């Protein structure tokens, strides 16, 4: 039972942190990025490939962050100039392009087989092999990342992002280079996703192209919306709520091949219900895009 709780705690923390990263771009900048899981995929594969080739943990983790950040920069350049719903379709296309490369570059990624046996980290000769020790490492790194994100979102930079979300024309009229700020926010969000993907890849110890497809995207979107977009704590809370509901289904006897679709159905129903009846989520602020 304790093992189960420790495992669960680590999973909750990692997925909450990834939702928080999505919150930066959807909640604070107000850009509906549907291809966010592609950053996670890019970070995870970078990290896993480096770790499998014996590169030290911190180097791999930072490399995952940097590569994901570069991806955020490159995809931000063409898409961040687009208006609301066009960015949704363009970023979704980005997710499909990433997926196509992951399943077709079989020499590097092993294609649909995925990468098994991703090692748990060893730091200065200390091996974080057990779930308990790994939970400790997860808590430590997540606290640092969460603190950094909190500082960034509550700095003047974060205020400018919120201004862009509420009224981009006004932000421009105040002399702000809105595109530059949006690009920076996209890179920051992707970078932290890359950092967190190091933890997720080492935690699950396996990644495959199907981990980074639509069901995951729905999960993060539902988590963010129920938690409340545009709020730091809302971003963290949403994943906990949804995973909590998901864990409840574990105790109902379901045939194994029905679990996946039923979980996706839960996410989908939550997503629809939240958007229809409580578009600001539990902790969300009043956001123009979701409030009217």
């Amino acid at each position, binding site marked *: 039972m304790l093992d189960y709780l420790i495992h669960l705690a680590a999973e909750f923390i990692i997925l909450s942190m990834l939702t928080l990263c999505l919150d930066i771009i959807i909640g604070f900048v107000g850009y*509906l990025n*549907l291809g966010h899981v592609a950053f996670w995929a890019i970070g995870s594969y970078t990290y896993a490939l480096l770790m499998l080739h014996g590169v030290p943990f911190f180097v791999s983790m930072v490399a995952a962050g940097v590569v994901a950040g570069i991806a955020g920069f490159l995809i931000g350049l*063409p*898409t961040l*100039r*687009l*208006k*609301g*719903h*066009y960015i*949704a*379709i*363009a970023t*979704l*296309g*980005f997710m*499909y*392009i990433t997926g*196509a*490369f992951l*399943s*077709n570059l079989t020499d590097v990624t092993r294609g649909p087989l995925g990468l098994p046996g991703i090692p748990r980290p060893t730091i200065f000769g200390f091996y974080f092999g057990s779930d308990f020790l790994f939970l400790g490492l997860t808590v430590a790194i997540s606290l640092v990342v969460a603190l950094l994100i909190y500082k960034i979102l509550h700095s003047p930079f974060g205020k400018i992002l919120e201004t862009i979300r509420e009224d*981009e024309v006004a932000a421009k009229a105040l002399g702000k280079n*809105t595109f530059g700020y949006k690009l920076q926010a996209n890179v920051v969000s992707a970078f932290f996703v890359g950092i967190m993907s190091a933890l997720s890849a080492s935690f699950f110890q396996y990644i495959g192209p199907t981990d980074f497809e*639509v*069901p995951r995207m*729905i999960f993060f*979107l*539902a988590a963010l*919306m129920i938690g409340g977009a545009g709020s730091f704590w809302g971003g963290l809370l949403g994943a906990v709520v949804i995973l909590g509901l998901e864990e409840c289904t574990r105790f109902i006897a379901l045939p194994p*091949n*029905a679990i*996946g*679709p*039923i979980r*996706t*159905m839960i*996410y*989908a*129903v939550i*997503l*629809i219900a939240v*958007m*229809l009846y409580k*578009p600001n989520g539990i902790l969300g602020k009043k956001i*123009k*895009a*979701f409030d*009217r």
Partner: protein
Amino acid sequence: MLEILPQVIWYSLVASAIYTLVAIGLTMTFGVLGFINFAHGEMAMLGAYLLLAFWVMLKWPFWPAFTLVVILMVIFGVLLEKFTFKPVRKSHPFKPLIISIGVSAFLQSVVVLIFGAGVTSYFQDGQQAAQTFSFLNGDFVVTDHQILLMAISVILLIALALFLKYSKTGKAMRAVADNPQVAAILGINVDRTVSIIFALGTALAAIGGMLIAGEQNLTPTMGLSLSIYGFSAVVLGGVGNVWGALVGALIIGFLENFLTAFTALPPNYNSAIVFLLLIIMLMVRPNGILGARAEAEVRK
């Protein structure tokens, strides 16, 4: 190389016909309601699976099954709009968009639960295999199903174009698309018009889904990729314009099949290339090829 050209062109046309049927519904909802309906492709997927249930599993004759699927899907499409999209019609387009993603995921999971996640086909036993006609010393082969598919698509497209242009309802639809408030003031029933748009769009998507399932295979994920192909066609051709949807669908259909036939690029990259084209198009000419709307609609 050249001797396979007629065959490749034919395949391109067949693919384009399906993308057009899906894209028309998308372009109508996008033009009138102003949001991207990600659940639209699922109407095609659902139609295809319902036909599998009635025609293949229950062994009903083809045409009654086909008609029943269209009727059921029209009812479903109208009800779906009433319960999910109508409450948020006046909201920011993000809300209906996110809801449509939820609907899409929900329908996909329902189909996975009932029919399984794997690939299925209408012709698993091979006994219903299509009749083929070959021309040009066998270099150009056409199946009866492909001819049926092309005929249905062309007839539907012409009928729809005439309907939108000349019928009273079609004019009302264009009026609502242009300005819902003014249309309402002029006595056009906006709710009814939106319902008709959803009924028409769903019917076309369901027919497209059933036809493409006879040509390819059925997978629960086919709907979302059809949505994205359809929307790419809409953007390429020009938003809110039926002929734009046709032009965009032709570009995608031809691009896809010519890349597969004449380049060494593995076909798995097809969708990636379509999306790359979409992103480039949004950058370069966001109005689409036939689009007349101002660029400000797309870019800031």
